[in-house]
C-alpha cells in the first residue's frame, strides 16, 4: 500500500499529490491519502468520484484517510513528460461496470407495502456489494428515493462516498417539484442517463 501524506498542505497541493500518488502506485496497489483540510478533502473526493475511482473515507477529528482501491480495470490518464505537454490525451475509461436503475419507490410489483420494505432492504444490501456499482440512476418516481426524508438517503450517501455516481433525472425532479429536497446526487438529463445505461455492462433494476 502506498501512503500520500498531504497534512498541513493547502489546496490544490493535496489533489496534486493524490494524482501523483495514483500515477506512481502499481496498477492494483491500494493508495491511502491523509488529508486534514476540509476543502481539499471535498475536492479530492469529487475528483475520485468523477474519475470513477472507488474509495472509502475514514474521518477521525480533523484528519481524514481516503483509501483508493484499484483493480487492473482502472486506468489513469498518463502524463509521462510531466511538464507542459499541450496535446490533449483521450481519457481512458474503465469499461466493465454495473449500473443500478431505480425507477420507482418499490421493489418489484404486487404488494405495495411489501415493495417498500424490499426497496429499503435492497439499498441496505447494495452498499455491501463488492465492487460498488459504477452508478445509480434514479428516474420516474424513483427520484423520490433520494429525497431528504427517504429511508435510504444514508445508504445513497454511503454509495456516493464509496465512489458510486448518483444521477437524478432532472425532468422527473421538476415534475414532482422536489428540486429543493435532494441533498445528494447530481442532476442529469436524458442524454447523460442514457449514456450511463448504454456504457453499463450490467444493469440491475430492483
Amino acid at each position, binding site marked *: 500500500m502506498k501512503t500520500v501524506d498531504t497534512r498541513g498542505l493547502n489546496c490544490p497541493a493535496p*489533489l*496534486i499529490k493524490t494524482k*501523483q500518488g495514483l500515477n506512481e502506485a502499481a496498477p492494483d496497489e491500494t493508495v491511502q491519502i491523509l488529508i486534514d483540510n476540509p476543502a481539499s478533502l471535498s475536492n479530492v473526493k469529487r475528483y475520485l468520484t468523477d474519475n470513477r475511482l472507488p474509495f472509502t473515507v475514514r474521518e477521525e477529528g480533523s484528519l481524514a484517510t481516503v483509501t483508493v482501491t484499484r483493480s487492473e480495470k482502472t486506468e489513469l490518464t498518463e502524463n509521462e513528460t510531466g*511538464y507542459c505537454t*499541450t496535446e*490533449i*490525451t483521450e481519457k481512458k475509461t474503465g469499461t466493465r461496470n454495473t449500473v443500478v436503475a431505480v425507477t420507482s419507490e418499490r421493489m418489484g410489483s404486487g404488494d405495495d407495502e411489501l415493495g417498500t420494505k424490499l426497496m429499503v432492504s435492497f439499498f441496505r444490501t447494495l452498499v455491501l456489494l463488492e465492487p460498488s456499482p459504477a452508478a445509480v440512476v434514479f428516474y420516474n418516481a424513483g427520484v423520490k428515493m433520494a429525497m431528504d426524508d427517504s429511508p435510504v438517503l444514508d445508504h445513497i450517501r454511503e454509495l456516493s462516498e464509496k465512489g458510486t455516481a448518483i444521477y437524478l433525472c432532472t425532468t422527473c425532479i421538476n415534475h414532482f417539484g422536489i428540486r429543493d429536497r435532494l441533498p445528494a446526487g447530481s442532476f442529469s438529463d436524458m442524454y447523460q442517463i442514457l449514456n450511463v445505461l448504454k*456504457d453499463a455492462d450490467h444493469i440491475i433494476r430492483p
Partner: protein
Amino acid sequence: MTTTVNGPAGFDLLSTVETGGCSAKIPPRQLEELLQDMPLPADPRILVDIATHDDAGVYKINDETALVITTDFFPPVVSDGYEFGLIAATNSISDVYAMGGTPLVALNIMMFPSTRIPMEVYKEILRGGHDKAREAGVSIIGGHTIDDYPPKYGLAVIGTVHPGRVITNAGVREGDELILTKPLGTGIILAGHRMKMTIPSQLENAVSIMKQLNARGAELMQKYSVRGATDITGFGLAGHALKMARGSGVTVNIDMKSVPLLDCVYSLADQGCIPGAAFRNLDYTEGGTRFTSDLDYNLKMIAHDAQTSGGLLMAVAPEKSRELLKELHESGHGEAAVIGKAIRKAEADLVLQ
C-alpha cells in the same frame, strides 16, 4: 518563494494569502441563495439590475445616456504591488466594457494593513491602478482605505452607454456564435505558480493577459451590433456561460476543444493542479449543465477555472462572426476564437462538449 518582485519595497504580496485560490470568493450557489430574498428596486430607469446576475448595473439618465456602475476587488494574485494594481484595475474596469460601455471615472477601494507590510507597497498598488485607469481613459477621483490584512484592492467604476445599445448577458439570440477573446486558465496558472510548477515565462504570459483591457472588445461589440456578452471572471467560463444562457433563455453549447488555453494549463490540470474555486463552480453549474460523455475531464475542470480579469464572451450573428474575429485578431486579441453557439432552449441550459 521564487517570484519576480520588481517593486522598490521588495515585498512579496503572495506571502499574505495562504489559501491560494480556495477562499477568495463566496461559492456562487450560496451567493445566489443569499441574494434571492433581497428586494429588487422598482424604477423604470434601472435597465439592468442584479436579477439577471449581470456584470454591472445600468441606470438610464436620459434618452442618450445611461450610467454603467460596477465594483470588484480581491486579494493579491501576484507578488509585485504595481502588477497587482494593474491587474485589479483592468479587472474592475472590464465590467463596464462587458456591458458595451465606455468607462469614465473610478474610486479606489483598498484594504491594507498599516503595520505588517511596507507602505511603499500600498503606493505601488495604487500607482498600478492609476496607470491602468489612465490607459483606459478613466480618471480616479477618490477612494477609501480600511486597515485590513491581507490586502485587497479594486475599483468602483462608472461608465456610460447609450440606453439602446446596452449589451447584457440576457441579449444572446438563438443562432448566435460565441467568441471568447482571451485564453483561459489564469486560476490554474496562478495556483501552479504557487506550487512552483510553472516556469517564469508561463506566469508572465498569464499576467500580460490579465493586464489586457477589454476596451477593444467593447468597441468591436458595438460596431458589430452584439447584444449579448459577459466577461469571464470568478465563476469560470462555464459559470458565466450558464448565467448568460439562463438570462437569455437559450441553450449555450461550448466545444471545449476549440477554447484557447494559456500555455501549460492543460498539463497543470492533468497533474491535479485544480484550484478549489473550480470545484465550487462545478457545484454551481452541474444543475443546469450537460457534460457530454466524451468531454475530457481536464477540459471540464478548465471550463470551471476561476479567471482573474478574463476575456469577453460575446454572442454575434453568425454572418458577422468571421469579420469580428478578424478584427479582434488584428487588435491584440490574437487568440480570440469561436468556441460555441447559442441554440434553441433545451433541457440543459449549458452543454459542454
